[in-house]
């Protein structure tokens, strides 16, 4: 440049070559790191699966990222949930054990932290300047970011797919760890999941990456993986929730006894014993309001709610999904390729959701409409 054909042309060429060499060198660093061969420990897929299932005691801390391509519209009052499955979420996580841990969802200028302590959960929301202490157990609740860390997600999916076939996968490096992989191919018909891929630390069984691929899709539609991970007990100071202080909002909420309320209302007419040809199993002992149907990954959850709560859910689902006409009521179906959501409105309102094909929920809709009538 500039020196084409002058007495310093050789000099210029030498200098540009040097700059180019630096560019190539620096540019190739990520590529080389990515292509560096992984020597994963040889481990049987079945053994790995057992280790993953038993890894809940393994303490760790790290930085994880989940990316969902589900394209679920931002349903009113459920934005936090739909964002989890439709966008990229970055999480810092410290895990000391099943009842001690912390997950921070970090974004540009925002932070939402969830602390799990033996005496309850604490939620700190920086944007709202609000600290909330949650007392009691939550047997049924909406998914939170803490459920999407690779270990939690992988263990949950593996538990769901307990009887399904396991195939070994080639190892890969996740967050600097040579991880061993396994693939679960669900046997149950009717699920939208083609396969679940999990990579885990072969020694401790700690899942480092989990991927969900929908049927007919080439790329996974939901990925959760560690970008950085360290095995070991996190600093106790980090796990201590912030103390409430003036200038900061602080509330204590007991887990609302939603289930009890639903139960009382539901007692008159519980959920059907069979839906879409699947027998019902109770999700929570002693509760009629929530039912689980199907097996493995093809299971779906049905929840009966009073009509006034259901109206809004129905409007939402109808606005973004398609409505189904049927005798005795109406229904709206929202299909995302992986997750399918159904709202049936007759005399009562039922919500159903699961990683199942729309056809399954359509049949369930007809059954529910009959039950509702």
């Amino acid at each position: 440049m500039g020196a084409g054909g002058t007495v310093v042309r050789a000099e210029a060429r030498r200098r540009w070559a040097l700059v180019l060499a630096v560019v190539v060198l620096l540019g190739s660093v990520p590529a080389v790191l990515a292509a560096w061969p992984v020597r994963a420990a040889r481990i049987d897929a079945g053994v790995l699966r057992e280790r993953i299932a038993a890894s809940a005691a393994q303490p760790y801390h790290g930085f994880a990222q989940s990316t969902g391509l589900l394209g679920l519209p931002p349903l009113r009052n459920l934005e936090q949930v739909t964002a989890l499955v439709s966008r990229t979420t970055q999480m810092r996580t410290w895990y000391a054990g099943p009842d001690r841990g912390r997950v921070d969802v970090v974004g540009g200028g925002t932070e939402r932290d969830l602390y799990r302590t033996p005496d309850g959960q604490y939620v700190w929301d920086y944007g709202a300047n609000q600290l909330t202490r949650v007392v009691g157990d939550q047997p049924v609740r909406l998914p939170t970011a803490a459920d999407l860390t690779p270990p939690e997600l992988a263990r949950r999916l593996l538990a769901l797919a307990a009887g399904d076939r396991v195939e070994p996968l080639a190892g890969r490096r996740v967050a600097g760890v040579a991880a061993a992989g396994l693939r679960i191919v669900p046997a149950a018909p009717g699920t939208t999941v083609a396969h679940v891929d999990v990579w885990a630390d072969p020694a401790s069984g700690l899942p480092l990456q989990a991927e969900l691929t929908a049927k007919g899709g080439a790329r996974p539609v939901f990925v959760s993986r560690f970008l950085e991970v360290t095995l070991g007990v996190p600093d106790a100071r980090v796990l201590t929730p912030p103390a409430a202080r003036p200038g900061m909002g602080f509330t204590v909420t007991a887990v609302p006894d939603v289930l009890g309320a639903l139960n009382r209302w539901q007692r008159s007419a519980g959920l059907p014993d069979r839906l879409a040809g699947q027998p019902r199993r109770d999700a929570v002992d002693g509760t009629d309001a929530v039912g689980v149907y199907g097996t493995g990954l093809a299971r779906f959850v049905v929840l009966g709610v009073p009509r006034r709560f259901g109206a809004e859910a129905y409007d939402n689902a109808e606005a973004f999904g398609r409505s189904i006409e049927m005798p005795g009521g109406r229904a709206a179906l929202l299909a995302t390729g992986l997750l399918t959501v159904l709202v049936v409105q007759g005399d009562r309102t039922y919500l159903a959701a699961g990683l199942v094909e729309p056809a399954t929920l359509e049949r369930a809709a007809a059954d529910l409409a009959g039950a509702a009538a």
Partner: protein
Amino acid sequence: MIVTRGLTKTYGRVTAVDGVGLDVHAGDRYGLLGPNGSGKTTLVRMLLGLVFATRGEIEVLGLPVPRRVRDVLPSVGAMVEGPGAYPHLSGRANLTLFDAAGPGGGRRDRRRRVDEALDRVGLAGIDRRPVRAYSLGMRQRLGLAAALLRRPRLLILDEPTNGLDPRGIREIRDLLTELNTDGTTVFLSSHLLGEIEALCTRVGVMDRGRLVLQDDLATLRAPTGRVLVGTPDTDRAVALLDGRVERSDGGTLTVRHPDPAALNAELVAAGVRVSAVAAERRSLEQVVLDATTTSADRVEAA
């Protein structure tokens, strides 16, 4: 002092400087004459290592340029294509900055050097006004002062008298002559013939990128072997000098003769009244016109 061999610079398809072989001796007051666009400025820039030649060699103060230009430049004072200064600073602040930027200038006597340089160019009394408020002549003097900061052995000046009034031009000319007497070689370029004729001892003429002429001014202006004679008695003179008169123009005769004194004696002896007698010298203008072909800024129809 300055030697170039086959120096050529092309910009794309335009050849700005074409095979120039400059030769400036120590102690010269060298004038590079040429119209605007003849490649003078490009040549000067190449001498200073600002522009890199396409071909050819340059030696300044005995060192190759651009390879050793950093050893050459501390002994060179230069002004290229108009003065340049930071407009929001005063003249003194400008000189202080330029002095501090280069090597070899101690901090302690910086003030003295700056004052000296300003004094030399006739700006000793400048105040704190920013350069923005200076006239072109003042800026020109400031640029010259910057070139003189390091008491250079060689001054390379591109159009140094631009924007100066006649008195200013005279002052600068005297200054350059004085510096030259003290041992500084002066190389200047100009498109003004009179200026070079008045100042320089050696002349180079550029025409469309080529150095068409380079010689001592004395040689160029050597007597032509003709004498100009002014006389009211033209007819008698022509008769007397029979055949030696080349031209008669009013009261002035152009006579082929080697010695004006002898000619005068001859005419007077014959009773011809002589009002003026002088050896004819070629004017520099004539030399330049002979050496160049056409005006550089003239655009001929194809």
